[in-house]
Every structure is written in structure tokens, then in C-alpha cells.
């Protein structure tokens, strides 16, 4: 996927300015940055719930910006939104079934379900429970499982660690890394837990007030003084 010169505005307020990001097939790319930098807006623009003002997003050569929202999931883009957004009044199993709403998802349903249950065994135990009654961590697992159920070519995860206990966060990160390594799914991750997120990824982008201020590999970014000071709280003052 290639994002070129993307500009997004809410009314007069520019949320993203001339953002260019490339995610190669099979890559793990992370976007980090402080609150309000436009990370979620970036995701919403890709999956289509926020319109772009300028620039282009190409997914396997096809331009997404002119495409209706519901079509984009069928291309193989799975968006695991911020705050989980599970279907609270549906059971866990029904949530996963809705993830497999796309044609690719239906074709691979048996295999995906098995894989999801392998990654998150608790979801098999809780299959018939309403998703709204689960804990935050379990809901995050449902949200990720729901994304996986669509047999995606690109899995976008928006702050999967939000509001979770550190131990659960570690588990979630471990599973995301597993999905990338073992299933070969391309991953685009937005995170505030900068160090952990960057460690997993092939390439990282730093987004600040709507613009990409820096990008590079884990090593390059971790050696940068500004990143160390601003996001990791280390480095000499």
C-alpha cells in the first residue's frame, strides 16, 4: 500500500498534511506519535470513514479514495479500530462471523476460526457469550480475531494496547507479532507504546501534528535523540 501526499481536514482544521507512507507486502509498519497527531485519522481515511482532501492511497495498485467504504473491506483491508468497537449485543462467535463477511473471509472461515482459537483460546470458551460482557482485553482479542477472520491482505491495528493492563498488552503484542511472522499478514500498527511497537516492526513513522517528521528502521529511530527524549523518556537533557 502506498499513501502519497495525503491531506485530511475536519472543517478548517487540518488533521493530516501531505503524509506519505509506504507499506510493502508482508511488512510490519508502525506509526507512532503523541495524542492528536492524526494517527487514527490516517486509519479512518484508509478504511474510508473520513474523506481525504488531497493526495492518494493506492492498495495493490487500486486507488482507494474514490471507492465506497464497504468495498474496501472486500479488497482485503481489515481495520481493528481504536477502542475495540466490538458488536456488543452479538455473541463472540457472531462477531467473528461478521469479520468473515467478505468473500475471502467466507472462503477461509474454517481455517481462520481454527487459527483465531489457537491464538486466543479464551474466545472459543466464550463463543456464545455476548461480546459486550467481556473484559477489555478479551474484547481486544475479539476485535483482532474479527479482523483476522476476513483473511486480510492488510491488518490495521489502532492502539490495541489502549486501556489494557501491561500483562495483557504484552500478550496482545506477542500475538500481533505471531500473526505477522507465522501467517505472513501485512501489518500497519498505530501505537503510543513506542518502544514495544517499534521493536516489532520493520519500519516506523513518527507522526506529529499531522505530518511525518521522521521515518526509519527500529534501530535508526531508537538511536535518534529526539525520539529517545520525546517518546522513551531517556537520553541526556
Amino acid at each position, binding site marked *: 500500500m502506498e499513501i502519497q501526499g495525503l491531506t485530511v481536514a475536519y472543517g478548517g482544521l487540518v488533521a493530516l498534511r501531505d503524509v506519505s507512507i509506504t507499506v510493502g507486502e508482508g511488512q510490519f509498519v508502525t506509526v507512532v506519535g503523541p495524542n492528536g497527531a492524526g494517527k487514527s485519522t490516517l486509519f479512518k481515511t484508509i*478504511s*474510508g*470513514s473520513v474523506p481525504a482532501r488531497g493526495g492518494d492511497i493506492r492498495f495493490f495498485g487500486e486507488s482507494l479514495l474514490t471507492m*465506497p*467504504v*464497504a*468495498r*474496501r*473491506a*472486500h479488497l482485503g483491508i*481489515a*481495520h481493528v*479500530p481504536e477502542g475495540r*468497537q*466490538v*458488536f*456488543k*449485543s*452479538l455473541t463472540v462467535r*457472531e462477531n467473528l*462471523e*461478521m*469479520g468473515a*463477511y*467478505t468473500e475471502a473471509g467466507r472462503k477461509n472461515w474454517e481455517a481462520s476460526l481454527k487459527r483465531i482459537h489457537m491464538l486466543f483460546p479464551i474466545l472459543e470458551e466464550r463463543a456464545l457469550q*455476548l*461480546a*459486550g*460482557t*467481556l*473484559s477489555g482485553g478479551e474484547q481486544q482479542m475479539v476485535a483482532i480475531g*474479527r479482523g483476522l477472520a*476476513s483473511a486480510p491482505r492488510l491488518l490495521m491495528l489502532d492502539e490495541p494496547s489502549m486501556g489494557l493492563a501491561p500483562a495483557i498488552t504484552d500478550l496482545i503484542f506477542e500475538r500481533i507479532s505471531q500473526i505477522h511472522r507465522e501467517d505472513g499478514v501485512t501489518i500497519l500498527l498505530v501505537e503510543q507504546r513506542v518502544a514495544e511497537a517499534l521493536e516489532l516492526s520493520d519500519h516506523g513513522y513518527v507522526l506529529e501534528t499531522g505530518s511525518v517528521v521522521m521515518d526509519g528502521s527500529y534501530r535508526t529511530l531508537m538511536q535518534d535523540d529526539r525520539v529517545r527524549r520525546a517518546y522513551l523518556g531517556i537520553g541526556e537533557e
Partner: protein
Amino acid sequence: MIDTTVLIENVLNALAAGITIGCIYGLMCVGLGLIFGIMKVVNFAQGELLMLGMYVVVYLFSVWGLLAFLGPYYGPFVAALAAGPVLFVGGSLLHKFLISRVSGLRTSGSLDEGHFGQLIITLGVSLILQNGGLIVFGSTPVGVRTPLSSRAWEFIPSEAWDVSVFFNKARTISAGVAIVVAILLYVLLEYTRLGKSLRAAADNPTAASYMGIDVEKAHRTAFGIGAGITAIAGGLIATYLSFTPFVGVDFVIIMYSGVVLGGMGSIMGAFWGGLTVGFVQQFSALVLPPQLQNAAIFVVFLMILLLRPQGLFGRSAERA
């Protein structure tokens, strides 16, 4: 001694009428249950959708006589079922041009979830349909003449007593049709891909669009089904009741109390809620004058909600 027999007979007959009318009310509430309980759209024009369903039967069967060839026995019931697809189309159009502007993705996340707009728009639609109905259909009460309306099956519980229970044929058949339609809708919503996608689109429109569900279309379909279901119930009521274009006003309140009583978000609950309302209405007729029947409904309504604020079948999907 005679008094006891009469009392038993009255109670049993109220029970029979309560069950049959209750099932039809149940179906009526299921239609609103889908629109208000599941999709969270406040629709005050639901009574007028019911009214239109009734007139569809009158026109198909009596006025135009398109279905008259089916005879006075089957004709009215087939016409009542036909009111479903007609109002499905009508409801879908109403949603496409008006309701969709104040519901679904457009208002998801807004302060009132679009309820203010829905209230005003549907009240307006309701007034337009009532008065439009008056112009088109006239103010003379009409009904569908079927010989079944004035016939009943007699049921004698025991030879020992001198008691008979009467099941009005039109109402009893209507109740049967209502149960079948309600079960079909339940199966559609619970077990089919379409049904699940409708529930997902109602639960979280934004997330549903990420799944590749066409949310606009899903909401339109659900609204159309809800309109069609209530219209079928209206068509069934038309087989035993005469009515004017203002009939919806009486029923819309019954529908809302049924849906809330059964528990928001539950189709089965809406049916039981409607059944309860029908029951209370018929039983109150034993001791109260007819003018107070609706008051009795609300007394019971308030008592049940006092004890079970979430409704009979309501379940909270939120983690406590």
C-alpha cells in the same frame, strides 16, 4: 353457584381473547421492536404503517378485489401477508429519503444519536399519513368482511361444567399467522448471515462498515422489514376490526409499551410484551369499563417496569 360458572366462563373467554389478540399485538410489536428496540430509531409513524397495512388489505380484497378470487375465507389473510412486501417497499423508501438523514452513520456518535430529528420527522410523517389517509380513504370506518369475523370455534373444557369458551375464527387464524411470521423473522435475524449483518449494522454502524457491510442498505432493509411486519399485523387486525385513517394513534402507544415491556433489543421480548398487553387489555374488560382498558395497560406497564426496569426479556450487553 351460577355466579361461579359465569365467572369461570368469563375468565376463560377473556383468556382466549387475550391470547389470540395478544399474538397479533405481539407481531405488531415485533415490527417496532426491530426499528426502535434494535435499530434505535424512534418512529412515531409506526401506527400509520399499521394503518396503511390495514388499508392495503381493504384495497386488495374489497375495493379493487384483486384477491377476491381467493374467496372470503383465505382472501383477507393472503391480503394481510401481501401488505408486508408493499409496506417493506414503502418503509424502505421512507428510510431512504427521510429517516436515513437522521439515523445510522450520519448521527452515530452525535449527542442524541439522531433521536431529536427522528422524533420530529416521524411525527410529521405520521400527521401527513393520517390526514393524507383521510383525503384518500375517507373518514367512514371500513373493515374487511369475512364470514370468519362473526364465527367462533366453541371449546368445552369439561362436560361437568356448563362452560364454553369461544375462539373467534378470524382472530384465531390471525394469531396463528402472526406466530408463524414472528418465528420466521426471529430465525432470519438470529441464524442467517443477512440477519446477523443487520444486527451488526444496528449495533455499531462504523465497525460494521469496516467489516464490508453496506450499512446504509442494511439499515434500509431492517427498517423496511420492521414496517412490513407491523403492516402484516395491521392487515390481520383488519379482519376483525373496522377502522379509520386515525386508527394508528390507538395502536402506536400499545406498540411502544409492548416493546419496552418486553425489553429493548429483543425480538422475542417484543412479542411477549405485545402478548402481555393484549392479555391485560382483555382481562381488564372483565372489571373495567372499555374506556379504561388502555389505562389498565399502563398501570400494569408501570408495575412491571418498577420490578424489572430492563423489561421482561431485556438483557444488558454492557459489562457492569
